[in-house]
């Protein structure tokens, strides 16, 4: 440290007299820069991906080989039915991690530094959500890969299969705003985990993930019919294996829009207040 030179680098820009940056899409550029930060963190700690890679494997193996014969008559038929559901379930539980991470992160100094910079206040949150896209792509690819090894086959065409994957990733991005909001409101990462699990669990089981909805009791069907998971699973199932699509894609997109419209403003407001 004794080698410190005595004058600082001389590239002084006169920031104080500059007008607030007029360049457009500031929020987008700043959010992308901050998303890159999340990507680097994911890259550095691959063990954080265990939840989203191991879980679909376990669920597929257990459910297909244990219940396949009883539920669908054959393990192959059940695998064709179950895989889109497991993908949706993994996506839905995978969003919990962003809430847990943000709850830990926000208490650290880096968020104070962000708030002292001339960037949009929402950029760190938007960046964190966007940075998780990679996680969801990994979930989707690894679920499909293990499914293929077990004998799952796409019955439609590659374009529809890709559309199904994109729909799942989009759903995750939009649903992320719920755990982001929760992470701003509760005190500890454990509480985020517990609360989110309590919210996500009924959504995934009271749905068409594991069994066809018409086998359920009537009162539960009423819930299953509006459950966003049901629409996502039916849409992905239709795009992967050709079951009737109905209006499920549109309902899924409507739910996505709803999550963002409600929880993004709530999360941003809670973030601004959380000092």
């Amino acid at each position, binding site marked *: 440290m004794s080698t410190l030179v005595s004058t600082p*680098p001389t590239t002084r*820009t006169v920031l104080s007299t500059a007008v607030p940056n007029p360049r457009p899409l500031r929020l987008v550029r700043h959010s992308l820069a901050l998303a890159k930060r999340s990507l680097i963190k994911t890259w550095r700690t691959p063990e954080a991906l265990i939840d989203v890679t191991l879980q679909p494997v376990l669920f597929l193996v257990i459910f297909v080989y244990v219940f396949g014969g009883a539920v669908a008559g054959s393990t192959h038929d059940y695998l064709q039915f179950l895989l889109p559901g497991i993908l949706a379930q993994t996506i839905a539980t995978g969003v919990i991690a962003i809430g847990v991470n943000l709850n830990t992160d926000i208490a650290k100094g880096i968020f104070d530094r962000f708030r002292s910079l001339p960037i949009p206040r929402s950029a760190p949150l938007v960046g964190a959500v966007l940075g998780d896209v990679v996680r969801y792509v990994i979930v989707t690819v690894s679920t499909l890969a293990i499914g293929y090894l077990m004998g799952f086959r796409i019955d439609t065409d590659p374009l529809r299969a890709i559309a199904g994957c994109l729909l799942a990733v989009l759903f995750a991005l939009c649903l992320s705003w719920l755990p982001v909001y929760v992470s701003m409101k509760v005190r500890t990462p454990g509480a985020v985990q517990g609360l989110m699990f309590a919210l996500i669990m009924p959504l995934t089981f009271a749905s068409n993930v594991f069994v066809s909805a018409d086998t359920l009791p009537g009162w539960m069907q009423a819930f299953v019919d509006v459950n966003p998971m049901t629409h996502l699973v039916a849409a992905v199932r239709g795009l992967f294996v050709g079951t009737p699509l109905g209006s499920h894609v549109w309902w899924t997109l409507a739910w996505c829009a709803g999550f963002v419209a409600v929880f993004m403003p709530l999360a941003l407001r809670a973030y601004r207040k959380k000092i």
Partner: protein
Amino acid sequence: MTADLVIEAEGLVKTFGKTRALQGVDLAVPRGTVLGVLGPNGAGKTTAVRILSTLLAPDGGTARIGGFDVVRDAERVRQTIGLTGQYASVDEDLTGRQNLELFGTLLELGRNGSRRRAAELLEWFDLTAAADRPAKTYSGGMRRRLDLAASLVGSPNVIFLDEPTTGLDPAKREDMWDVVRSLVTNGSTVLLTTQYLEEADALADAITVIDHGRVIAYDTPEGLKRVVGGQTLEVRPSDPAHLGRVAAILSEVGSGAQADEIRKGVLAVPVTDDEALTESVARLAAAGIAVTELSLHLPSLDEVFFTLTGRTAAEDDTTGLKEIAA
């Protein structure tokens, strides 16, 4: 507004629950100077810095940085300032270089500009060798340098340093002081908080002493030292039998007061100038008296507070703890 006051705060008030962290604090820092804000833990130093750096809104009073109000023109203020404190830090999972480049991008330096600026700062802070390691592997001193470098990415005109040397060993502290001096030479205005009178004395053009959220003194370092007493010379003779003769010598080189035995075997006398040190060394040598310890001290923060308030800084530590918790 006085034209060349870069940092100005009037009557800042901030309350956390029942804790009154700031109870009407005024601060003023002319362009190109260093203000040292001196106070114990929980005095309100950090709260004041957080308000001035737009992280916290005051409950009362106003503050302006470069003429911009920290509440109404927060965006403009953020373009002017750099903030270093234990709370405003870097991302531990990113490398030093990735951190600096991220802040460069967020400050609109562009891809090449960010890279160039990051390389410059890494070089200046002697972090080039460690640039591509995650920040969490850095030592305390390296981490502090990276924190400071991160706050300088945008070449800010106004720099807040919240206890920049707390926890650093003396050699690293001196290095940090050199950095602060060079920032000022380069035209920056600095507000620095510290718990050490010695640090404020070494760096600041003026010192504001705060306690329990109030300013209890504002003066130049010289003026403050006149009030709280200057330096003390402490000597521990190797042979306790020489205490009497040493006391006689010290009383002569001192500023008039008699030498006291402040701890067992250690004599102390107030002195007015640095020459007292060399003179006493010469006279002790001439008398053939060996010493194991000989040092010159400024009053500690406790002594400063005792003089200014009549009680020690540590007496109400509970208030301090509450403020930190808040």
